[in-house]
């Protein structure tokens, strides 16, 4: 049994029928709303956009793998499948107040085969200039860059810092309602609230998070912008034999609690200061849990960039620190092995210092190069599949947006 996020990503995949069902429902709702609005003197407007990147990467540690949540990896040979992806979006602007957004993402999964997910499929209604409402599927906005984490064209890095953002996941979207309210003030101040649910089923394994409740405060005043977010996600995770394993682990002698069902809390602080040509971004995420099956972690990134005419050099520091790593000494035999294996799997503390540059070739293409110097806490493997001291990842990426 392995409860960590890596195994969840590998074992489960989206229910193929679900996107079709949601698409159809939203399409019918939109058609109905458009009809009810009598077109409001504006013709329907459809925008088709795409984004993507082709990224080559390798590292300097022979035989080791730098692995992501879906099992794609970078090794010591030049490879393309870890980061490369393509996105496609259709935005149907029904009228001034109503639009329908559908966005798909195609990337390689654990078997290095092509996998396409619907990441966004929502109806957006502008109730007023201050208030907007989204209903449907969206990338759960837990972190500062969650919503656009796959749109690497919008970011300085080749890939968002892996300490904070897994490069691909089946668990980053959910279905629900998202409300945004902009306060009337000189500064840009927006309050957001979302409630959503995520359900993934495959054969006899099921994962459910509901209701995911979150609230966000965004504020910007000229050069300074910040974001504060808190969210709560109760997780209901069922797998064969799970109850028996929980019974073995949760005995009175155990020092801690081990339950697959858990309440996860997410806290995010994001700060951006821009004073042309300099820009600095700070993003910190604290993930809390009520038991010892999952990680309690703090992830941080600081990125400094300089906007030259066509080239943006950047320097980035990121760190991930998992806290609940103390050995379990209250269990015996197989139970002890199992509990300590869970803890061992969480030994992924690492620090990355990245330096790179983005060159805007033209309006549609950008070329990026990045060097990651990764240091591991002694005894930790970071995002690699084995314990080592340090590693260096080299990446070159061609990105596009149209």
């Amino acid at each position, binding site marked *: 049994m392995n409860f960590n996020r890596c195994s969840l990503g590998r074992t489960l995949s989206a229910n193929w029928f679900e996107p079709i069902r949601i698409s159809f429902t939203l399409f019918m709702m939109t058609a109905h709303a458009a009809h009810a609005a009598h077109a409001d003197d504006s013709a329907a407007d459809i925008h088709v956009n795409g984004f993507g990147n082709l990224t080559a990467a390798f590292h300097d540690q022979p035989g080791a793998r730098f692995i992501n949540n879906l099992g794609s990896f970078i090794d010591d040979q030049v490879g393309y499948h870890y980061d490369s992806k393509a996105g496609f979006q259709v935005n149907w602007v029904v009228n001034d107040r109503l639009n329908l957004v559908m966005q798909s993402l195609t990337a390689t999964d654990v078997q290095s085969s092509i996998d396409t997910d619907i990441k966004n499929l929502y109806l957006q209604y502008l109730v007023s200039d201050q208030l907007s409402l989204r209903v449907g599927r969206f990338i759960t906005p837990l972190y500062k860059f969650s919503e656009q984490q796959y749109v690497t064209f919008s970011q300085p890095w080749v890939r968002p810092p892996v300490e904070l953002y897994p490069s691909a996941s089946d668990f980053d979207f959910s279905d629900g309602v998202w409300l945004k309210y902009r306060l009337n003030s000189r500064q*840009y101040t927006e309050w957001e609230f979302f409630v959503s649910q995520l359900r993934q089923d495959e054969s006899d394994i099921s994962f459910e998070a509901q209701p995911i409740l979150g609230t966000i405060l965004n504020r910007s005043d000229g050069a300074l912008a910040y974001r504060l977010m808190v969210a709560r996600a109760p997780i209901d995770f069922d797998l064969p034999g799970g109850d028996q394993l929980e019974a073995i682990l949760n005995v009175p002698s155990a020092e801690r609690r081990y339950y697959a069902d858990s309440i996860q809390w997410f806290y995010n602080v994001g700060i951006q200061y821009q004073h042309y040509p300099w*820009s600095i971004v700070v993003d910190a995420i604290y993930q809390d849990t009520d038991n010892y099956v999952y990680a309690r972690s703090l992830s941080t990134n600081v990125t400094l960039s300089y*906007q030259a005419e066509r080239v943006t050099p950047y320097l980035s520091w990121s760190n991930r620190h998992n806290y609940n790593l103390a050995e379990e000494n209250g269990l015996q035999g197989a139970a002890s092995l199992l509990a300590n294996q869970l803890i061992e799997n969480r030994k992924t503390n690492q620090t990355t210092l990245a330096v790179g540059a983005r060159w805007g070739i033209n309006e549609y293409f950008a070329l990026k190069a990045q060097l990651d110097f990764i240091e591991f806490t002694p005894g930790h493997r970071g995002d690699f599949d084995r314990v080592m001291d340090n590693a260096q990842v080299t990446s070159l990426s061609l990105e596009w947006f149209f």
Partner: protein
Amino acid sequence: MALYATKHAKVKSAAWIFCWLVFGCSSSAHSESLDPIVMVSSTNSNLKVTSHEHVRQLYLGLRRTDSNNLLVTQWSRKEQEIREEFYRVCCNLGPVEFRAYWSKQVFTGASRPPKALSLDELVMQLVDDPTSIGFVRRSELNDEPRLRDLELDFHPIDG
């Protein structure tokens, strides 16, 4: 000790590469006109845009209305020099960062970038639609009696 030395060397390498890149890029500095950029609408327009921050929010898609809650359409310029200078002085964004910013807005379903027009097209558009705003150079405004100065000037910035 050896581990510390390795770590220190890598930090030093990254810092050197970054400084070298910044130094190399900063030498290709942009040129900016001394002629300021001014915000304009039609002389028939009643739009009330009150501050530079208000303009910034409109052009970054963070806001859609004027101070009286009238829906505003904002237009950009096809001419590269004034367009890039405007986004630098108004939004603190270089041309590459500006495209990056809008790629984020588009793919989060938030809003779409202002459409770009030539000076002649812009004048026609503003005259036809009193809820529109745009930007021109001060010298261009002096030649055009159909445009109203919103009295929000953007001057070249140091750097």
